[in-house]
């Protein structure tokens, strides 16, 4: 142990071990879900309604419900999140208000997801009388992913060189013209990345939709935003814990579809980010 190089080798070995302890299980999880889930996937599984008390049939209503929820979430969260990011990057000054806003964003990001569920229940379902519905669920998820959209969009806006703003203003363009014509177009890829990451999160969350939208078993498609809906993550929870004797194939298949959906969204976000970095002109 006297020799510092031996100490170093031992230390680095443990650091490597720690890394393996994270990466290997991740690989294992993804591998197991693909190995056992992929064989369950066929057209019927994706397009049929659940049958025999969810012990047979497909998961189509859950897929549709999740798509509706994600769509509702983006319609609500993107405009507010983007405008908030514009405020933070273009309008606010370094003062107490700015500190408070940043702190609020950090806290919003830290609120436990089940507390969002409670909040959605109290405000949208009961107070606004939207009932358990796609609308209530989307609004709840929308508030939950606001911090992700604000933070990433703000980074994207701030990565547009300051000099572009100066040039535009020096030509007599107004502040909003500058933002609209110079800053926003060049921040689009970053904003898109953040939005997709946020939506991936929304698609996978269960706790916030437990009491605001999710239907245990609803073998038809929702027809309006005031309807309840099934959703993939909740469906996986239900068939894993609430319904006995569900075929493993169906469970793994559902987990596979959910994981694939979320990972594809993340992959798309990463590709956009990567392409944008390569193409950047300044």
């Amino acid at each position, binding site marked *: 142990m006297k020799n510092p190089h031996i100490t170093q080798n031992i230390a680095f070995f443990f650091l490597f071990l720690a890394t393996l302890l994270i990466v290997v299980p991740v690989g294992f999880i993804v591998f197991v879900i693909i190995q056992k889930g992929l064989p369950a996937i066929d057209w019927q599984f994706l397009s049929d309604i659940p049958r025999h008390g969810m012990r047979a049939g497909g998961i189509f209503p859950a897929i549709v419900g999740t798509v509706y929820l994600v769509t509702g979430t983006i319609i609500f969260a993107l405009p507010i999140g983007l405008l908030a990011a514009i405020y933070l990057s273009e309008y606010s000054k370094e003062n107490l208000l700015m500190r408070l806003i940043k702190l609020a964003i950090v*806290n919003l990001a830290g609120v436990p997801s089940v507390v969002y569920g409670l909040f959605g229940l109290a405000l949208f379902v009961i107070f606004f009388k939207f009932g358990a519905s796609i609308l209530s669920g989307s609004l709840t998820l929308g508030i939950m992913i606001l911090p992700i959209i604000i933070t990433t969009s703000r980074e994207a806006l701030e990565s547009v060189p300051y000099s572009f703003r100066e040039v535009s203003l020096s030509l007599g363009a107004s502040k909003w013209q500058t933002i609209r014509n110079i800053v926003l177009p060049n921040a689009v890829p970053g904003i898109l990345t953040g939005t997709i990451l946020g939506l991936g999160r929304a*698609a996978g969350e269960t706790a916030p939709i437990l009491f605001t939208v999710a239907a245990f078993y609803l073998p038809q498609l929702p027809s309006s935003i005031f309807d309840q809906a099934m959703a993939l993550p909740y469906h996986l929870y239900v068939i894993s814990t609430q319904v006995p004797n569900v075929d493993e194939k169906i469970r793994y298949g559902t987990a596979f579809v959910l994981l694939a959906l979320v990972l594809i969204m993340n992959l798309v976000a990463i590709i956009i980010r990567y392409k944008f970095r390569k193409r950047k002109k300044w």
Partner: protein
Amino acid sequence: MRKLKEFIIEKLILICGLASIFFVVLIFLFLLKEGLAVFSTVSPFKFLFGKNWYPISDPPQLGILPLILGSLLVTLGAAIISIPIGVGCAVYIAEVAPANLKEILKAGIELLAAIPSVVLGFIGMVTLVPFVKTFFHLPTGLTALSGSIMLAFMAMPTIVSIAEDALYSVPKTYKEGAFALGATHWQTIHRVMLPAASRGIVAAIMLGIGRVIGETMAVMMITGNAAVMPNSIFAPVRTLTATIAAEMGEAVVGSEHYFALFAIGIVLFIISFAINVTADLFLHKRQ
């Protein structure tokens, strides 16, 4: 006309800029609105330190101490597992790993962060739970230990990425100075880099723990959900979050049970608020 349009847009931007503050306050107010009612039947002290959680007996007994201890036990276990592994992995990625491996590892960590908690809970149920059961010869694998292991995984992406950022932001000159004095790479890391990044690493750990306390689905699926005073990590426990998730569906709106679940929400909100504000102070002072 254009003036008016710009005026409206700029006002909208200001309103949305304040939206985060508005929503945080709104969440807290609605939790209070629905949750404070419980204290008309049970005192705050009895609520927090009562040992019995029988919400549907008559009269209901609403003491959340077993749930608080359940959360603490699971969180403590997760912290013990995730802190050394998470910080070790962050150091490895930031300091030791070669550049191309670094990118792969970071992608792996991002992947872990992206996996929905219900999927992790499901995998935990079908792999980890049976393993814990047979390995420790237990009547059930749905234990605090299983929950801790699963939650440790959910804390790690947060710990790794924030701690790694903290290590990166240590000025290069520190490192070069240590090397110039003839220190080995490891000596440089543990005598110079880690102390210099300590604030950020502490913040990383706190935020990771915040994630664990707030985690719901995975923990509900694999800790067994027994609302009793926990006495062993090999026994089932129930956390604050899982209680809300499991029982809100059955609670009658306006009942004491319903109010009590919202009161648990207040407790969770305050805990996460405290953790985030403290972590933010640590991160903020560093700059």
